């Protein structure tokens, strides 16, 4: 084991982390995590585009980028609220309620984003 290089050790740690994740996370949370990963990718693509070709039209870039950022944040909030381990923290907010809030926030967010998109 001592003979493994640093890269090999890093890979092993990450592998273990991923396996643990798959085993211990509930399905519901994994769905949300996948969704968050998707949002992240979309945000990165938009940012790379902006860096490459410039910020014109700036409002369009901001609308798109903030849409991804805000969606990510809302998804993070939803994940926190439906996680059974946090049940004591969010006493009185059922998962359905959390999901309803999530939907409402998204409705408002997208209205604003589309307005700013121009």
């Amino acid at each position: 084991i001592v003979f493994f290089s640093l890269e090999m050790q890093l890979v092993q740690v990450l592998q273990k982390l991923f396996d643990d994740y798959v085993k211990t996370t509930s399905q519901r949370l994994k769905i949300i995590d996948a969704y968050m990963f998707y949002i992240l990718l979309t945000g990165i693509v938009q940012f790379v585009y902006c860096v490459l070709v410039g910020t014109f039209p700036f409002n369009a870039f901001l609308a798109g980028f903030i849409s991804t950022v805000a969606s990510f944040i809302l998804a993070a909030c939803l994940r926190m609220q439906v996680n059974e381990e946090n049940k004591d923290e969010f006493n009185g907010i059922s998962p359905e309620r959390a999901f309803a809030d999530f939907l409402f926030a998204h409705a408002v967010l997208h209205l604003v984003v589309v307005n700013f998109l121009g």
Partner: protein
Amino acid sequence: VITMRVVGLIATLIACATAEKIFLSSYWSAADTKRISESFQNVLSSKDDLSSLHYATSGLRLLGQKVDDAKSKRVCALAQKVNDKDADALFHAASIAGDLSSCALTTPSAKTTVEAVAKEVDVNSERLFDALTTADRLNLKIDDTSFDKALTAAITKDASPKSLSNALAAASLLEKSIGAKYVSKIGSLVEQADEVDGKYLQLDGGLSVTATAVYGIFQLAHQQGKAPAITKDQVLQFSNHLLSRRQVFADRAAYNVIRAIGVLINNGYFVPASVSLESSVDLSKSLRLHVSNLFGAALPGAVTVRVEKLTFGETVVDSAKTATKVASDSSSTLFEVSGLAAKEAGHYILHVALEAADKKVIGTSSISFPVKATSEATVEGLEVVVADRDGKIQKKQSIASFARAPSAFTVDSSSTIGVSFTVKSKDGSALRPHQAFVIFEHVESGEEVVFIADAQKTEGAYKMDVNLVKEGKDFGGHSGGYRLRLVIGDSLIRTTLNWIIADATITVPAVSAEVVRKSEKVDYSVLPSITHMFRQPEKRPPGLISDAFTLIALAPILILVFLWARIGVNLSAMPTSIYVPIFHVGLAALFTLYFVFWLQLNMFETLKYMAVIGGVVFIAGHRLLRTMAEARK
């Protein structure tokens, strides 16, 4: 001898007692007549209002100018249309009819209108004078007592110069016994006059007030047959004021001035004289004096013009010469005197006195004119010296009077040029001219550089030095051929000297071109025209890249679907409820609405639709989630 001296002393005392303060040196000339007649004639052809036409016709009549038939007919026609119930219009029309030949008005109600003016409440003296003039022109017999009452009331109420001057003129048109009551007002009117500079007397209210006052005073005096309570000096000062304003252009003011001057020419008490110097002030020629009344015509009676004395500062140089009438003068107004003994060049004062046989003539003393005696100048001992930097004389030339140097000078940029000369008058005495310059005239460009010759200790000696090392830049970098000119001038030198003394070729130090700042440069050429540049759209990336990235940005959706499939989306746990499809369809509709909003709607419409769809989604979602929550429990 003693008796003669006593007589002389008494005569001087009498002369001083009757000597006036000022004399008049201007008069209404033919040029003034021409100027104002043209203006009046213009009014007659172009204006329609009765008041302007009145002043024009009356002014032309007083000046003895003819009005041609066409204008006369036109103006008469306008006057005949007058409404004879309007006192002001009637006044102007009556005067016009009186001024024009063969113009008669039919005014049946004229008498009533005129008499009604006297009965008006608080009527002013100007209106009363106008009404009385109307009656006079139309030969109406009116009630003098009512006018007298109204006039007295008017001046009791208002004793201003305007009111009093019109009152006096009005009183002169009433009966003699009634007019006598107003004679004392002459004094009150003259008291109110303001003296300016000791030379002018004017009344408040404008030029017309002063003119009407003079007219009124003398008309009333004429009616009463008594001299007016006004002194000779006051008459002269009033006349001076009127003459100083004779170039007025307004119709009414001009007419009033002409009328006032007219009364000053042929009244029975004071006829002011005007004495002016018509020739040049140079005593070397004979002096010509113009002696006339205020209209430029000869004074009444015989007039002798004497030169009392010619003074040079305090000394009397000449005295008691009589001026002779100029034989060729038909107007009998020009007098000449010559041969006055003024030996020394300088400024003298000529004192003139008039002796008029007619005792009415005033303004005959205290007459003086500044004159001068001049001399001719010559220049002697003119020498031009060119020396080099060390003072060594390179060339020296003496130039004879009014000659030109025989050979030209060559001067380089390190030399000095000196010019020295003496100015003398023709009779040998030295002169100190006001202007003694040497001008360097550049032949090619015409540029002139002027240097002042400085007076030296000897009276009349002058020297000019130009050091090209120090003063070279005055020449502005113009090298080449120059002409040197000597200029001598003074008010007491009869002929100015402008004498080319030499030619020179001068090399001057170059002067660097003056850099004119762009903001100070004057450029009259056509500047490039400015066309408006509209805002260019910003650079956008090529369509290919943006389309590619659109696809790349949408690509993660596939990854999401794949991951969700891997994780295992639990669709079978969906409850069977009517709200399920409604909720999902509603949600889809909401986001479709947003898409349409992006493409074409505005916020208000979107909110309108959103209210509907949102309501549906909210209710459906709420029910659905409740169902799921209960199912979970």
